[in-house]
């Protein structure tokens, strides 16, 4: 287990190092001058040169990368060009809302999807199964921003249950504000969980050890809950982890529709002003989050299935 963990961590560090370089190069290869965007059309060239020099943007790419990478080792993410503040200060408060939204969305999706997935498998090819599968397909096909707006129309504008957008001030305020976006996230994730759970549960239910368990006269609840579901969960967790990783960077749309001060909405605003240090740092943070989620998924296999002794 320890050896496995160490190996995974080394992998992660290598991936991050490559990611840092690629993130830095990508954004610098795309043309566009952050200083010109910041100072506007009428700014005299002398002012542009002066600010570019102050920000170190007139140095060679290699030296810029060296100072960026060097800063990372000291825990310094650089200074935001647009906001003129340390990137760490800009990013820090943005991480919480994004993670809370993801957690909340994942919980909602699991609460909905696990029972539906089990029902769907147990009543395979019967009306219940058909209805659940149609709902799952609709959920998967709906664009997130459209569904989000639909929720706002009903639950905010008509019923006034939730605010239209924002993040609130207290923990209760956060949860209240994040409910509609979390449902939007959940509706994206739930169909994937339902479909995967249904098919792997079906496979498991046909296995010999299930027949054996039933033959020994175990209650159906124990057969499904302890024997079948546990074995079927591995595939589901994998799918869930991949998609949460995808959602971390895909939260851009949901965060901007619901005006959540998270990482995704920050990415949109920083890209449009070519804020190089912030974009590079954001890419790193997204990379770290994806790696962490996948690592957690790997570890959870061992918990779910004791046979996996990594």
């Amino acid at each position, binding site marked *: 287990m320890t050896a496995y963990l160490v190996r995974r961590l080394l992998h992660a560090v290598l991936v991050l190092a490559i990611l840092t370089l690629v993130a830095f190069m990508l954004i610098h290869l795309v043309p566009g001058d952050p200083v010109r965007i910041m100072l506007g059309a009428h700014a005299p060239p002398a002012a542009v040169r002066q600010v570019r020099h102050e920000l170190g943007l007139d140095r060679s790419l290699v030296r810029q990368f060296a100072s960026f990478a060097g800063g990372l080792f000291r825990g310094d993410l650089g200074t935001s060009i647009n906001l003129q503040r340390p990137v760490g200060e800009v990013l820090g408060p943005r991480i919480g809302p994004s993670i809370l939204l993801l957690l909340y969305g994942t919980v909602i999706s699991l609460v909905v999807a696990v029972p539906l997935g089990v029902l769907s498998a147990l009543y395979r090819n019967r009306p219940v199964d058909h209805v659940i599968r149609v709902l799952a397909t609709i959920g998967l096909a709906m664009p997130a921003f459209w569904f989000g707006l639909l929720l706002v129309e009903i639950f905010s504008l008509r019923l006034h249950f939730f*605010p239209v957008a924002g993040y609130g001030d207290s923990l209760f305020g956060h949860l209240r504000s994040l409910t509609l976006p979390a449902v939007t996230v959940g509706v994206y994730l739930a169909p994937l969980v339902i479909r995967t759970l249904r098919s792997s549960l079906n496979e498991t239910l046909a296995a010999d050890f299930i027949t054996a368990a039933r033959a020994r006269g175990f209650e159906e609840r124990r057969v499904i809950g302890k024997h079948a579901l546990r074995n079927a969960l591995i595939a589901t967790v994998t799918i869930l982890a991949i998609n949460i990783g995808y959602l971390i960077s895909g939260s851009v749309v949901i965060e901007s529709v619901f*005006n959540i001060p998270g990482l995704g909405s920050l990415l949109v605003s920083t890209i449009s002003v070519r804020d190089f240090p912030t974009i590079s740092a954001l890419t790193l943070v997204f990379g770290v989050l994806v790696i962490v989620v996948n690592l957690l998924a790997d570890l959870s296999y061992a918990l779910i299935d004791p046979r996996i002794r990594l």
Partner: protein
Amino acid sequence: MENLDDLRVSLQEGRLARGEFLRRALALGLSLPAAGALLASWGRGGAGIAQAAVAATPKRGGILKFARNFEPVTLGPFGAADNGTIWTIMMVYDQLVEYQPGSFDPKPGLAKSWEITNGGKTIVFHLRDARFSNGAPVTAADVKFSLDRFKNPKVNNLLPFLATTIASVDAPNPKTVVMHLKRPDGAILSNLTVFPASITPKAVVTKLGDKAFARKPIGSGPFVVETWVRGQYLKMKRNPHYWRPGQPYLDGVEFDYITNDNTRILKLQSGEVDVAESIPFSQVDSLNKGATRVEVAPLASIDGIWLNNKHKPFQDKLVRQALNYATDKESINRVVYFGHAQVANALYPFFKYTDRSVKNYPYDIKKAKQLMAKSSVPKGFDVTILIPSEDQTKAQMMAVVKQLWAPLGVRVKIQTMETGALFTKYMNGDYEASDPLPSITSDVLVPDELALAWLEPGGVQHGFWSYYTSKKAWSLTLAANSSTDEAKRKKIFGQIQRLTLQDAPWIPMFFVPARTGLGAKVQNFHTLESGWWNLWEVWKS
């Protein structure tokens, strides 16, 4: 020329919001009570009449929640020139003179009056009794300190060209400021309204330095910044020492930063905010029904297609004129702006100096074909129009233009690029045709700034990178700018307007208005032509 009858028809057909009607009526020279009375008798619904009637008795108190698209970069008067910054700090600082709704002429601000002497080369400002938000009086020493920084291109590095005619500023006594000019400058008062000419307390700025001051700004404007959570909101409260008696009526203003258009609109509809800026044109009419309304107000901005006059075949004036004739602005206005834009009758806004008898090139495809036949490219040509990738309005506009130009044999390719990349390419002259910015704006409500920046032969901006030069237009610009005789200025600017439109260096299309969504409680809200708002006069019912 707009006249009262046009206004009446527009109002009764519902094409004109009430606030907008008042603004235009005031611009026509009507007094406020007279315009209000007209509105009451001409206005359609009962709500309109009721509103005009209660407008006279403002209520004090309340927080105005304002959903904004753009967040400031800084809160100091130097260091940024974006609308997120400018429109916010104009609520915090005062200038010697300032714009008011419905007027192109600078009105008394911290200066209660002034005299222009010495053949236009000396201006004596008399300061009013005003205080900064920390309670300290605004003195001539503060004004001198602030304006010395305004004319120092090392400090005011973004708009130094607005201060080039200032020779020196003296403060002979605490209530008097004397400004000496290098030459008479017809635009100088307008130039003193801009944000880098804001008056700041000398003692505080000197003690803190610019960076720290920008974090805790102190001005004599209507509001004081309380808290600013980046990416979320900026809260301001009333400046208790503000010099306009009884104002601001509001206890405070909260700017909420919401970049998604739909989210701003939903927040307005649900009543979570009172004001929402940058309403998409497609939603203006639907938001004008029910409890919300949209103020459509003219702005000092120009939209069009810039042509690279260095690039073949745009050296050829006949080609440029042909494209101007072939561009049906009225149709584009209907399709893209839902009729809310105003067709430009000049290369850029001329404000009160506009000669209203001048018309833009009318849509005339026959004339366009004749000009093309006589031109260097009678059979047509290929052209790539560069537009910002995130701008849906421009994409629609160019799709229409592509069809409109096809009969001339002009094959349009529309290329989208990310704003920053596009702008860099554009400013290197590396383009054929482009509509490069969301809107191209003037910082002042006189045509001098853009004329000086754009028409100077060999200047920095090369005719806003159209590479258009006209010696005649430049000498006229200098003549107009160095005159303080209003009648003379109007005459010369009229000549410039005609001459440059005739030369057709680019295709001016619209003066694009501001669209601001207002909740039912918001009273007396106006967007100034310069872009910001009269929040000190706004109140909530």
